[in-house]
């Protein structure tokens, strides 16, 4: 029992916290893939840009909360400009081109950040400290906030896609963009706004996680692989699957690290994915016929 309270429970919570943030990242990736057919290699860099934009805003305003609003907006704007300027011509081409274009964008963003802020590790302080007793242990308040905020966001996104007209339009565009165009919807604007939204979401995840992790130019590269795994595990194009898979990976990573050293954890995560793909090639909730 002591082991459960002192070791297992906090680690499980860590896993949920990380899983929720990973879900935000993977959700953007999966929507963009479903809508634009582009596997966005620059998604990790948008996540990283969120943290750095946060550092900039905190520098001016000394407020984490101001950053939480401004940073995603700024990165969303970057996303919109990027989509219009570079991704638009890619939609009619083979997926290869989108993959490679976003790989180039990732290089530019990463190196650009290194030039502006340097390559050092940085920290963002949590906006509040302290801890709360929960389930017989004390847990840092900021992590609880992170879990609540990410979960609320995931719920909000789900409501957006199921209950609002704008969300339904985006889903319709995933199904059949041409038909939607015929119905008089400006599909190009839907694409741009969706990409901007996905970028803002990634930025938000980056800033929310920054007080827990450290901020450095390579941070996106390390996250994006996990996000890819989440997207594949969940079933490509399935938003619910991405969220479930994000929690599975978050918790698995967290629990494994109790018993293994970090590199074994990484290999175990890859191993899970490979096994799932062999047993269930479409991932948890992948639809039949999509991409197979």
């Amino acid at each position, binding site marked *: 029992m002591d082991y459960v309270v002192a070791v297992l429970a906090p680690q499980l919570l860590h896993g949920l916290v990380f899983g929720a943030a990973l879900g935000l990242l993977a959700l953007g990736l999966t929507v963009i893939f479903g809508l634009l057919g582009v596997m966005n290699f620059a998604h990790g860099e948008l996540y990283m840009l969120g943290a750095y934009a946060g550092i900039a805003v905190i520098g001016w305003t000394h407020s984490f909360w101001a950053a939480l609003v401004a940073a995603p907006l700024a990165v969303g704007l970057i996303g919109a400009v990027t989509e219009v300027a570079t991704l638009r011509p890619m939609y009619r081409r083979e997926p290869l081109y989108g993959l490679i274009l976003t790989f*180039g964008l990732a*290089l*530019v963003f990463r190196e650009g950040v290194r030039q502006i802020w340097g390559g050092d590790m940085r920290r963002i302080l949590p906006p509040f400290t302290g801890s709360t007793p929960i389930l017989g242990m004390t847990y840092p308040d900021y992590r609880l906030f992170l879990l609540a905020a990410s979960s609320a966001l995931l719920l909000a996104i789900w409501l957006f896609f199921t209950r609002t007209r704008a969300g339904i339009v985006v889903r319709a565009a995933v199904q059949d963009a041409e038909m939607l165009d015929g119905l008089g919807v400006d599909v190009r604007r839907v694409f741009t706004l969706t990409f901007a939204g996905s970028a803002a979401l990634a930025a938000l995840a980056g800033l929310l996680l920054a007080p827990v992790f450290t901020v450095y130019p390579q941070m996106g590269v390390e996250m994006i692989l996990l996000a890819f*795994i989440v997207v594949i595990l969940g079933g490509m194009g399935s938003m619910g699957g991405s969220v479930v898979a994000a929690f599975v990976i978050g918790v698995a990573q967290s629990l494994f690290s109790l018993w293994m050293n970090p*590199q074994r954890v990484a*290999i175990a995560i890859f191993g899970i994915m*490979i096994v799932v793909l*062999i047993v269930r*090639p479409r991932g948890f909730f992948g639809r039949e016929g999509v991409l197979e």
Partner: protein
Amino acid sequence: MTWRAALVFAVLAALPGVPGISQYSLLLAFDALLFGAIAMSLDLLIGYTGLVSFGHAAFYGLGAYATAIVLERGVLSLWACLGAAVLVVGAYALVVSYFATARRGIYFALLTLIFAEVVYTFFRYTQTFGGSDGIQGLPDARLWPGAAIDTPLRKYYLVLTYLALAYAVCRLVVTSHFGRVLVAIRENEDRARFLGYSVQRYKMAICMISALLTGLAGAIYPMRSAFATPDLMLWTESGEFIISVMIGGLGTLVGPVIGGAFFTILRDKVSSYVDWYFIVIGVVLIVIVLFMPRGLLGFRRLLGFKQWRATA
């Protein structure tokens, strides 16, 4: 095309004789040609078969480690190094290609990427193989006892010979019936299957050829620089191979060689002036994808040259 290739190789062979060529330039040429050979091998998959491998760095790195481990044990034969690379890379590629070719489209790219990341993580954290430092300070390999590959000139000719042989193999592949089936798979996989071809077996075969050629290039790399590090296997390295293919032009053999050489020299030159060369590389890549989707070689068509893509 063959006479033109022969001409290119003749020019390359004469390169060290050009007055004013420094030892440094020869080593840069080594890198350029090695990168070109890898890009050419990768294009068998991307350009000819329509499979985007994001894990070629693992084949490259495994080849390099095979050489490093053999040389470290005091076995200095070039042939032992190459043999070890074929065994190691072949075994790994068999597993990866089996699972990766069972999926289409983006799955192939992601599976090759994730398998490569497993290999990278393994070498990065295994102290037996030097961890993040890799294996350093290797002795020179020998062609036969007494014939050490120890000067930049000899190293250059080693790579040039390899490139010529690899080109011959690739050309044999793409001009054969087998190569035509690959192009058919690229164009319409279902139709190829309905025609009775077991598509996955063809895909696996070309994956193995491409992986082994890349692994052999990897086996040659430590003979220039005397080390193998896990960074050779990082997925950004795979990205650079793809960039080289794109720069040169998909679906040709000579294009990626030019692309690989162009990329290597661009990186060397830009990085000696500014430390933000990745921005330059990234922008070059974006511009090429946007405005020259067929690469430098395909771009010629706009200038009035022949058809860009091998229809073989």
